[in-house]
């Protein structure tokens, strides 16, 4: 079974090799650009941030922008990267299940001695690897940008900041598998889970802006996301969110196993 899982994961990654480049390169180059321009905008930024409305700073977790790590968090890691990588995770997990159903590949794979939960597990594992590769590419290009521009980015902090996105992405991969228990249409699965992704972000934002509504943040995984590039990874949150993601994937695999796969 482990050998089958490995084969399925490798095939998934091979099929999505273009996607790895299509996501990893732009995200990495963008992140590198942010780091590279920091030395030249540093002074002006500090002054600008002082004039930002307090609510805006709280909403996006913007404190002082006196370090490149703070700048990277404010520009990318607080909003763009978690949303983009979350969406990538949904797309990736859907391609292994609903995409396979739509292309006819699922019927072929299920002609072999492979269980449906194994297919779901392979899709989840491959998504985790795909997201990790994209994050590694992003970190490497960011580090390179820092070296070239002399931005003095702490590589350890950058790794923590980007690695912290992985559990968050896996939550949406897990939700993607749950969604396949109800629909085998890629547009339905990606659309509905992307909707949950944005809704969770907005819920967290509202909870941060209005202290009376802070309780609603428990409905959103973004509550546990934090600011790892500056504060380091919270291991409890990291492992807890990962465990919930795995649990969601397991529930999704159970639902996927129980559903009909109509022609």
């Amino acid at each position, binding site marked *: 079974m482990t*050998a*089958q899982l490995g*084969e*399925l994961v490798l*095939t998934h990654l*091979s*099929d999505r090799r273009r996607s790895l480049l299509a996501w990893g390169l732009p995200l990495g180059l963008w992140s590198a650009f942010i780091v590279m321009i920091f030395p030249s905008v540093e002074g002006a930024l500090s002054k600008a941030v002082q004039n930002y409305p307090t609510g805006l700073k709280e909403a996006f977790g913007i404190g002082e922008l006196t370090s490149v790590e703070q700048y990277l968090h404010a520009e990318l890691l607080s909003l763009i990267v978690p949303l983009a990588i979350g969406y990538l995770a949904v797309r990736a997990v859907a391609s292994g299940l609903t*995409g*396979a159903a739509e*292309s*006819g*590949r699922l*019927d*072929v*794979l*299920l*002609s*072999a*001695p*492979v*269980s449906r939960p194994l297919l779901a597990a392979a899709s989840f594992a491959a998504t985790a690897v795909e997201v990790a590769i994209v994050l590694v590419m992003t970190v490497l290009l960011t580090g390179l940008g820092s070296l070239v521009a002399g931005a003095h980015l702490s590589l350890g902090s950058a790794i923590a900041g980007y690695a912290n996105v992985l559990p968050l992405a896996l939550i949406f991969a897990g939700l993607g598998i749950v969604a396949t228990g109800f629909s085998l249409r890629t547009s339905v699965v990606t659309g509905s889970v992307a909707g949950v992704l944005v809704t969770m972000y907005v819920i967290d934002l509202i909870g941060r802006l209005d202290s009376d509504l802070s309780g609603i943040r428990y409905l959103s995984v973004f509550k546990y996301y934090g600011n790892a590039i500056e504060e380091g990874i919270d291991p409890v949150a990291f492992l807890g969110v990962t465990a919930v993601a795995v649990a969601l994937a397991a529930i999704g695999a159970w639902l996927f196993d*129980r559903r*009909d*796969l*109509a*022609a």
Partner: protein
Amino acid sequence: MPLIETEMLTKRYGAKRGIEDVTVAVEAGEVFGFLGPNGAGKTTAIRTLLDLLHPTSGRARIFGLDSHRDSVRIRGRLGNLPGDFGYGRQSTGREALRLLARLRGVDGLGRGPELAKRFHADLDRPLGQLSRGNRQKIGLILATFHSPELLILDEPTSGLDPLMQEEFLTLVGEERRRGCTVLLSSHELDEVERVCDRVGIVRDGRLIAVERIHELLGRARRTATLELAEPSDLVGELRTLPGVTDLEAADGKVSFKVAGDLDPVLRAIAKRHVTDMELTHPTLEEVFLTYYGGGG
């Protein structure tokens, strides 16, 4: 013990019909065909056997194993060609073959390359660039490359050109001689006649008859057309024979339909000077008429 056995197998999609109370047994080494028009329920029956659909009621056993509980073990011993085969536009047949070989624990690519040569199938072009018939060849190779004990083929010759259809029918014959059991679905009577030992006629989700193929054809109405050298009382005599209907005669030509034993008809004809004669096989519709008495 039958290799495939279903008992009152029923699949409904909410209020919509799928299959209803299908009970059938397919013996080891047999080539069995599900015959019926499009939408009759053949694919639903096959997908339920393969555990892609979960039955509403009833049960199915393959190799003596439960088709749902032991599905993975069963699929390890069979080959399947899904209806309307697809695998993804970017992938090549070789990539699909390599993955399936590894999932099945087959060394190398099994008989894949040999079958590709035989069917003139291109294993190295992306499937999205192949015609429907050429994709179907890849599907056939994926179903048979590992020499399975049971082959399940849903509309296997769909999209194949006549030469390749012929090659496919030959392959099925070879598989049978190897000891493989074959379950196929088709809406082509000629096709099942060529390869099947028995057929199950599926109509509106129900298995309405299971017959040996020669019995099925014998019972169905065939169309006979004769050209006589001189006027005769053949029409009058044919009218008295059992199974003869729809008699028409004009300008020395006689046409009629005949069901059942042909011997009395041939004896009557043999007494006349016949310059030409054509006996056409029943169409699928005519086979159905036999079983429905014209009820459609």
